[in-house]
């Protein structure tokens, strides 16, 4: 598709053509000290912005992406058929209204979509980091983003929002930088990864690492471990859906409409998973998958403390959203966050949306999320102006 075609296809309530920008900081000797104690620098963050920052810089929203997301949250890149990953939520008149707000979305460190990660060149060796890249955590992702927010001249964000891993970053923001955020919207997320969540991630990592092409992470310039990564993504997609949403989407339908008694992917659900796996490997780096899933598994925002104790310093108002059929990040994990809010006296709203989409619901239940988020943001913004 050429540029003209894609321009014509852009719907009216869309932010239009967007471009990824880059911000580099932590140049040696001022490297970023990571959670692990290791140092990393220079660091580049890929980010996009939508809407305009107002004069007093009070309308900025930081949008956090999930495991496989990137900085391209809304609008179209030149020549692209598909818009950004949360285009349904970001744009003129949408939940995150670009007529009123300035929305920032950055790719996390450890990522492979323009931010510094294992596939980036290590300035010390002039080769890709590979497994030499330090272990990063959700806290590191947030600390890095803080540099970007400083760079953009924003003292206090109107809100930080994200689903899944984005929700973890949201929680980390409100805890790490209580004076820098007015509110937070953690969606379909948890304050700590559970045993089951770690287990799924480990199986996915093993799928990557047992691909002979992985070669301890030194595959750059050679064949990448795409079989392993595709399997990992297929497992991931099973966990993002629900029994019901799969039944509704595929049932037991087969492509040929007859049983072929072969090991080819004849069921539609098999075809879907293969398609998802195969398209994922074209845009995602296997080592990044390992690093980011590990960051998820290490996430336990309270650590040795009780969650309500770490919430005592929180000044942000929260809108916590969970989905009934989400079994990867079950609603009880959001209710744990609610419980901590109650004990710590954090002003919060909790809604458990009756959705059948499973974990994917945070990308799909647009009407309900918009309804909640739009009004919540109006309320936060008017509170800020008082």
């Amino acid at each position, binding site marked *: 598709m050429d540029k003209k075609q894609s321009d014509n296809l852009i719907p009216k309530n869309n932010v239009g053509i967007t471009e990824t920008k880059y911000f580099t900081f932590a140049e040696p000797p001022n490297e970023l000290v990571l959670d692990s104690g290791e140092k990393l620098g220079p660091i580049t963050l890929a980010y996009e912005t939508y809407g305009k920052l107002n004069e007093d810089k009070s309308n900025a929203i930081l949008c956090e992406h999930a495991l496989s997301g990137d900085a391209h949250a809304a609008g179209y890149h030149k020549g692209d058929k598909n818009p950004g990953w949360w285009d349904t939520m970001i744009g003129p008149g949408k939940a995150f209204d670009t007529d009123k707000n300035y929305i920032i979305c950055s790719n996390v460190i450890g990522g492979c979509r323009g931010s510094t990660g294992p596939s980036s060149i290590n300035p010390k060796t002039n080769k890709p980091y590979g497994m030499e890249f330090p272990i990063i955590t959700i806290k590191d992702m947030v600390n890095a983003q803080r540099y970007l927010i400083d760079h953009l001249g924003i003292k206090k964000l109107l809100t930080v929002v994200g689903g899944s891993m984005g929700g973890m970053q949201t929680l980390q923001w409100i805890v790490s930088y209580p004076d820098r955020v007015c509110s937070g919207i953690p969606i379909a997320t948890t304050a700590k990864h559970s045993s089951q969540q770690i287990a799924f991630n480990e199986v996915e990592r093993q799928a990557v690492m047992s691909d002979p092409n992985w070669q301890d992470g030194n595959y750059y310039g050679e064949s990448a471990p795409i079989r392993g990564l595709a399997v990992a993504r297929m497992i991931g997609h099973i966990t993002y859906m629900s029994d019901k949403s799969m039944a509704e989407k595929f049932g037991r339908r087969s492509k040929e409409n007859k049983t072929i008694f072969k090991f080819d992917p004849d069921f539609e659900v098999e075809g879907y998973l293969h398609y998802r796996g195969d398209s994922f490997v074209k845009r995602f780096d296997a080592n990044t998958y390992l690093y980011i899933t590990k960051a998820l598994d290490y996430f336990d925002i309270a650590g040795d403390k009780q969650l309500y104790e770490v919430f005592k310093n929180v000044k942000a108002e929260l809108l916590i959203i969970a989905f009934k059929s989400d079994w990867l990040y079950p609603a009880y994990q959001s209710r744990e966050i609610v419980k901590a809010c109650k004990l710590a006296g954090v*002003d919060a*709203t909790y809604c*458990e949306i009756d959705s059948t989409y499973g974990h994917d619901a945070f990308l799909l239940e647009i009407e309900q999320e918009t*309804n*909640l988020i739009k009004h919540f943001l*109006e309320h936060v913004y008017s509170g800020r102006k008082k």
Partner: protein
Amino acid sequence: MSDKIKIEYSIVMNWIKDESSILDLGCGDGELLSLLVQQKKVRAQGIELDEQAIYKCVERGISVFHEDLDNGLKGYADKSFDYVVLYQSLQQIKKPDIILRDAINVGRKVIVGIPNFAYYKARAQIFFKGIVPVTTSLPYEWYNTPNLHFLSISDFINYCKNKGFKIEKSIFIGEKSIIKIFPNLFALTGIFLISK
């Protein structure tokens, strides 16, 4: 909003001190809390089970938790709120005595509003017609009522006595006015301010 609800709300409003903190259990669409925020500058928190009502609360800018009170009132430390409100919701909860016990711990004071089952028109419907009563404060049929428990004003007063709860204030409301004589017979609703 009906006249009766207006009267009831204004009573609750009068009892609540400015800039206090309120937890409304079964807050519905957040109408009462939103009035309290506007007129009394209270810090408000609601708890509600119905998802559509949650959206309305958020629309009004009311903080609300989507929770089922049948699972108890969990998570709050004692004396977290100046007032806990159970307005027309106590009779819909599976274990009202447990919620009331928790409410009186979590709040310094508890405001309870109940429909009176012993209202004279209700008595007449049972006595003369032999049917389950339908009144302004108990507007449902037997097959669609959300009410699980049926109690009278006298029942509630006796209950508080037995539990050692102090009834600091009480007001009884009829079709259009406040009832002062024989409330258990003539009032549709009783509103109580209780403490431990």
